[in-house]
């Protein structure tokens, strides 16, 4: 405990770096997954290749992906861009299927009503279908958030600073305090991400609150 009080600023700094490395890919991944998920839904031929293809990406072990990234995008091994891109790939791998399934769960009658009211395709997607799919997409995003926070810590092995650095430093010095602090900080960060996603979901799906109150 004394270790923590003496190193608060260092832990905070690492937490922010960790939040950045895990959080930015969530947003990028969501932005990439929405069109891909929509394509998978819209064109039946694309569903299996898109879902199976992105699912396959998820099987690549994280440490391997961090190390192989420089071969594909020409960065240096210590570059934090490697981690951002790798984590974005994982997020997309998890979310494309979720987005496709979420859009698929929108009742046909609702989509047709929107068309009948004169909504064109893009407007129908953004004003009707995506909001209705939000709870499902949010569930997928929560899974991705928790796994991102945990996976990012592995990047400490290749020397990218974030909370995982506390693990490697502590282990090297045979000192458990920083490791315990790092694990707790990781779990708390995952909880914060989870809370933010839940709050945003509540904000964009006001009808769910009404239904629950009724």
């Amino acid at each position: 405990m004394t270790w923590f009080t003496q190193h608060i600023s260092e832990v905070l700094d690492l937490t922010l770096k960790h939040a950045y490395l895990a959080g930015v890919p969530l947003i990028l991944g969501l932005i990439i997954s929405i069109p891909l998920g929509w394509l998978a839904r819209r064109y039946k031929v694309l569903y299996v290749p898109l879902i199976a293809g992105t699912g396959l990406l998820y099987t690549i072990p994280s440490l391997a992906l961090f190390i192989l990234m420089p071969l594909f995008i020409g960065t240096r091994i210590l570059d934090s861009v490697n981690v951002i891109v790798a984590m974005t790939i994982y997020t997309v791998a998890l979310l494309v299927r979720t987005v496709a399934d979420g859009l698929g769960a929108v009742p046909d009658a609702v989509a047709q009503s929107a068309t009948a009211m004169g909504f064109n395709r893009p407007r129908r997607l953004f004003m009707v279908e995506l909001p209705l799919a939000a709870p499902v997409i949010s569930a997928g995003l929560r899974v991705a958030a928790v796994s991102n926070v945990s996976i990012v810590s592995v990047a400490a092995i290749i020397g990218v600073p974030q909370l995982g650095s506390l693990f490697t430093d502590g282990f090297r010095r045979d000192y458990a305090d920083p490791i315990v602090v790092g694990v707790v900080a990781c779990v708390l960060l995952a909880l914060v991400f989870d809370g933010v996603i839940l709050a945003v979901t509540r904000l964009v799906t006001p009808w769910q609150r009404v239904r629950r109150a009724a």
Partner: protein
Amino acid sequence: MNGVINWLTDPAHWSGDDGVVRRLVEHLEYSLVAVLIAAVVAIPLGLFVGHTGRGRFAVVNAAGAARAVPSLGLLFIAVMFVGPRLSGDAAFVLPCEIVLVVLAIPPILAGTYSGVEEVDSAARDAAKGMGMRGTEVLAKVELPCALPLIFSGLRSATLQVVATATIAATVGLGGLGRFLIDGLSVRDYDQMAAGAVLVAALALAVDVVFALVQRYAVSPGLTGRRVRRAAEPGVTPELAVHVTA
């Protein structure tokens, strides 16, 4: 890229005590033991929770929390606290297995209980109507119907374990992670990248094996969407937890 190919095609790197074959066997050993232990714990527990609905809240939340714990940190803590009480290789192997089991339990558990919960209640009622007792309903109806989801839980658990067994090398154990860690310490990028390619290839191979086993192990009566959905790589059980939680 050429350096990686040269490394992989050099026969000297494949044989011997620190060759690829030996490391591959070690990697599979760590992974298999962990998945087996996790399955022995998680499948009965998941069946119980799914069948009775008891302890659901606790199990869902414990599994969610376990997911958030970073494996690398847990591994180091386990080595520091469990290691000194044991001697020889066990001082590192046991902590490593603990971490891998903790990692593998949540997906298997989630797959099992959501598989049982999702069984058509008409099928369950029909079984009761035929005079089956609770345990018979579980063994003859719920378990076979839940198999696709149990399998997809096992599959994602195995993939995560195979991926994470790589970090065993950070505490001096073997496995394919050795090439990553050794390559890193002597700044031999070709060796690191070759190791990374091997781990990724192993993960893909394991996934393919699971897809084949799943195709033949699931009752042909359960055709249609559910089988197809479970046969694709993905996160159905995980999502199920969060949607229903």
